[in-house]
C-alpha cells in the first residue's frame, strides 16, 4: 500500500465526522434491503398462502390484484434503488468527499 494511502486512512480514522456519516448511510442501506426482502417475500408468501386473494379482479375489470402486486413489486424495487442512489450520490457523497479532502491535505 502506498504510504500516502496509509496516512490518509489514519486521518480518516481520527476524523470525528467519518463514523456518523458511514453509519447513517449503512442504516439506510440495511433498512432498504430489509424493505426489499419484506416486499418480495410478502408477495411470494401471498402466492403460496393466499392465491385466491391475488386472483380477485379489481373493480369491474379483468385485471387481478396479483397482476398489480407483481408489477407493483417491480416498480417499488426500481423506486427504492432510485431513492438510495439519490441520497448516496448527493447528501452522503458530499460529506464523504469533504472527509477525504481533509485527509488528503
Amino acid at each position, binding site marked *: *500500500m*502506498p504510504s500516502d*494511502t496509509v496516512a*490518509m*486512512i489514519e486521518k*480518516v*480514522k481520527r476524523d470525528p465526522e*467519518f463514523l456518523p456519516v*458511514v453509519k447513517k*448511510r449503512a442504516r439506510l*442501506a*440495511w433498512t*432498504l*434491503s430489509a424493505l*426489499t*426482502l419484506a*416486499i*418480495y*417475500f410478502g*408477495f*411470494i*408468501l401471498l*402466492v*403460496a*398462502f393466499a*392465491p*385466491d386473494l*391475488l*386472483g380477485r*379482479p379489481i373493480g369491474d*375489470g*379483468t*385485471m*387481478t390484484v*396479483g*397482476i398489480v402486486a*407483481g*408489477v407493483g*413489486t*417491480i*416498480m417499488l*424495487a*426500481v423506486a*427504492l*434503488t*432510485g431513492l*438510495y*442512489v439519490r441520497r*448516496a*450520490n448527493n447528501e452522503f*457523497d458530499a460529506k*464523504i468527499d469533504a*472527509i*477525504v479532502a481533509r*485527509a488528503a491535505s
Partner: protein
Amino acid sequence: MNIPAIVMFLMFVAVTLVITRWAASRVRSASDFYAAGGGITGTQNGLAIAGDYMSAASFLGISGLVFASGFDGILYSVGFLVGWPIVLFLIAERLRNLGRYTFADVVAYRLEAGPIRTLSAVGTLTVVAFYLIAQMVGAGKLIELLFGLPYLYAVMAVGALMVTYVATGGMVATTWVQIIKACLLLGGATFMAFMVLANFGFSLNAMFRAATDIHPDGLAILSPGKLVSDPISAISLGLALMFGTAGLPHILMRFFTVKDAKAARKSVFYATGLIGYFYILTFIIGFGAITLLMSDPSYFRASPDGSFDPLAAMIGGTNMAAVHLSQAIGGSLFLGFISAVAFATILAVVAGLTLAGASAVSHDLYASIFAKGRSTEATEVRISRISAIVIGIVAIFLGYVFENQNVAFMVGLAFAIAASCNFPVLLMSIFWRGTTTRGAVVGGSLGLVSAVTMVLLSPAVWVNTFGFPKALFPYDSPALFSMTIAFLGIYIGSKLDRSARAEKERAAFEDQFIRSETGIGIGAASSH
C-alpha cells in the same frame, strides 16, 4: 429460410466486428482488457448491465411462460429483478472501492490470496459453466429453428463470435456488444408491446379480457397457478433468484468498468429501471401472444381434423411465442428483426460469461497464485486471451454434448451456486470483521458442494433427467439450505480459527472498511 433475419443478423455481426477491431486497438493494458480502463460512464454501464442480464431465456422464456400460464410467468421476472436493489445497497459501491478486475480482488483484500482466489475461481468457473451450457444449447436450438442452420454449426458460430469479441477486444468490445444488444432488444420489445396495446385501444383490461376469453385456462391465467406449490420451494427459489444476482461473476465484473462508487450506483439504478421496464414489456408480449396467436392455426401443428392444442402444439414450443408474435404484428421483416435480436441477445450474454471465466483463470489463478504476482501485465492478458479461446472450445463441446439433454435447470443451478458460494463469501468478507480465510474457504466450499449435490438429487435432475424413480432431495431449489450452510460455515469456521493469520486478518478489517466506504486508494482502473 428467412432472408431479412439473415441480412439483419449479418449486419449486427458486421457492426460488432468493426467495434471489436476498434476496441482491440484501444486495449493496451490489463486494465483496458479486464475493465475497459475504467472509462465506461454510469449510463453506459447501466445499459451494458441490462444487456448482460436480459438473456434470451428471459425474453423468450418469460414471454413463453406468460403465454402458457399467465401469472406464473410474472413470478420469475419479479424474482430476477429484486436482486438488483440488494446489489446496489450492499455490494456495488464497496466492490468498486476495493477491487480492480474480479470480485476475488475484494475478498482477497485482507484474506490470503492463495486459498481465497482458488475458491473464487472455482465458484466463478462453475457458475460460468452451467450458465454457458444453458445459453449454448438454447442458442443452437433457436438458430436451428430461425435460420435453418444445423445445430452443431449454430453452436460453433456462437462460440467463434464470442471468442472473437472477448479475446481481441476484451471488456471494451464486450461492453459495446452488450450496449448495442440492450438498445436493439429494448427497442424491439417496446415496439411489440406498443402494437399489442394499440390493438386494444391501450386498455389493459380489454387485453386481459381478450386473453382470458381465448386461453383454455380462462380466468385462471390471471391468478397464481401450479408453479408455486409449497412455501419452502417458493422461498428457496426466491432466495436463489434474489441473492444469486449479487454473486454472478460476469455481473460483478461490470462494476470495475466505471471510475468510482458514484458511477457504480448510478449504473445499478439505470440497469434496474431498464430491466424492470423490459420485464413489464415481456408480460404484455406474453398476453398479446395469447390474444393474437391462439386463434390462428398457422402457428400450431394441427391434428388431421384441423384442431390444435394451443398450449402443447406451438411450432417450436411455447418459447417461440414472442417470435411468432413478431410475425403476427410486423410480418416477415419484423420477424427477421426479432430473430436477429434474439441471436444478438445470446451473443452478448455469452461474451460477458466468457470474459468473466477467462479473467478468473488469468487474474486469479495464473497471475496471483501460479506466478505469485511476478507475471507481467502483457503475459497476464495473453493468458486471458488464451483462456477465452479454451473456454470457447469447451463451450462448443459441452453445447454439442448436451444438445438433447434438459438444460432448463442449469440457469437455476448457476443462480443457486452464485447465491451459496460467491455471495456469502463476498458479503461476509466486506461486512464482518471476524471473517477469516479458513472460515471463508470452509463456508464457500460447503455452499458450493451442497448446492450442486442437492440439485443433482432433486426431482428435476435425479428423476426427470437421470430417470431414477424417487428424488433423494425433495426440493428443486436448494438455496434456502445451501445458503444457510454457507453462512454458518463461514461463521463457525472463522470463530474457531485461532491462528496468527486470523488475528492479522481481523486487525486488517478497519483499513478495509475505511477504503470500502470512502474509495481512498481506489484500484484506479484508468492507466491513461
